[in-house]
């Protein structure tokens, strides 16, 4: 692991130790109850996934400030830095998940996040008719919302999910656009 990744890992561990903790079973069961409710309302797996992503987006827009304020990370130089920060600091600090970055493309505009474990998945089994449901799609929304607040527009989706029978959990993040800070008023 590069020195920078090690530093971020340390920052993530420190931030995690300072955060208020909640019982992980409580979180898993509450999240599961919420997804069940969404399934009852929308019935379609793709629509539920969309709703979860939307919720995640609202969360991400606020979460970014907590990450910036509490984790003591410096500004990211490029998208690879961003990837490492999300994996080592973000996931660790908020969910206690150990994640790593993989499959960075040549231009540095795409990467995958590999999650070692996922507490949201505890006690969960997807029934046949919901095999297409992206259960933890909320993470995709959180990443999209948070990055949009720091001027990056991304597309985020699950490439592999243990709940769907794959051997690991992988989230793919693609950089669509870097937004520039524009002066918002028309005349001076």
């Amino acid at each position, binding site marked *: 692991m590069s020195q920078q990744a090690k530093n971020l890992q340390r920052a993530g561990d420190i931030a995690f130790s300072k955060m208020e903790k909640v019982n992980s079973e409580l979180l898993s069961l509450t999240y599961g109850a919420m997804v069940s409710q969404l399934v009852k309302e929308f019935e379609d797996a793709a629509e539920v996934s969309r709703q979860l992503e939307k919720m995640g987006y609202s969360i991400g827009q606020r979460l970014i400030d*907590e990450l910036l*304020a509490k984790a003591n990370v410096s500004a990211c130089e490029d998208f690879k830095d961003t990837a490492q920060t999300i994996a080592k600091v973000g996931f660790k600090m908020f969910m206690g998940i150990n994640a790593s970055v993989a499959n960075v493309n040549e231009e540095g505009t795409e990467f995958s996040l590999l999650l070692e474990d996922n507490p949201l998945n505890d006690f969960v089994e997807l029934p046949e008719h919901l095999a297409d449901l992206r259960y933890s799609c909320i993470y995709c929304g959180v990443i999209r919302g948070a990055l949009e607040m720091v001027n990056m527009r991304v597309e985020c989706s699950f490439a592999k999910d243990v709940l769907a029978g794959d051997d690991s959990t992988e989230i793919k993040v693609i950089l669509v656009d870097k937004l520039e800070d524009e002066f*918002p008023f028309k005349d001076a």
Partner: protein
Amino acid sequence: MIFGFYLFNRDGICLYHEEWKRSRTVSSREDNHKLLFGLLFMMKAFVSKLSPKDGCEFHSFKTAAFKLHYFDTPSGLKFVLTTDDKTPNLRDCLKHIYSSIYVELVAKSPSQEIGKQIEGSHFSQSLNKYVQSLSYFQS
């Protein structure tokens, strides 16, 4: 002596403004906000272009009558304190306002819409309590 506090977001909206001491009356608060935001935006751009090193940020400026302290976040929030010219740099205070007051009471508040002015008294009370507890508040 601390005169006032402003908080702007990325789109130039003044999310919060508090004055503890002001001797002159201002024409229009809205115009005042726009002017201040414009100044901060330009200063930031100007400082990064003129700086001999990469990634230098604007921290404060001083005039004969007052000093303006500035702190901004990558998420576009701009925290400003105006004080008399003898007060030392309050950047750490601004950081504290961000991490312990803004994040806890605004970012985490479900009733607070993003991009709109801060409503409710929690933020105001906490901010006042903190600022008034600083030794620089009355000097």
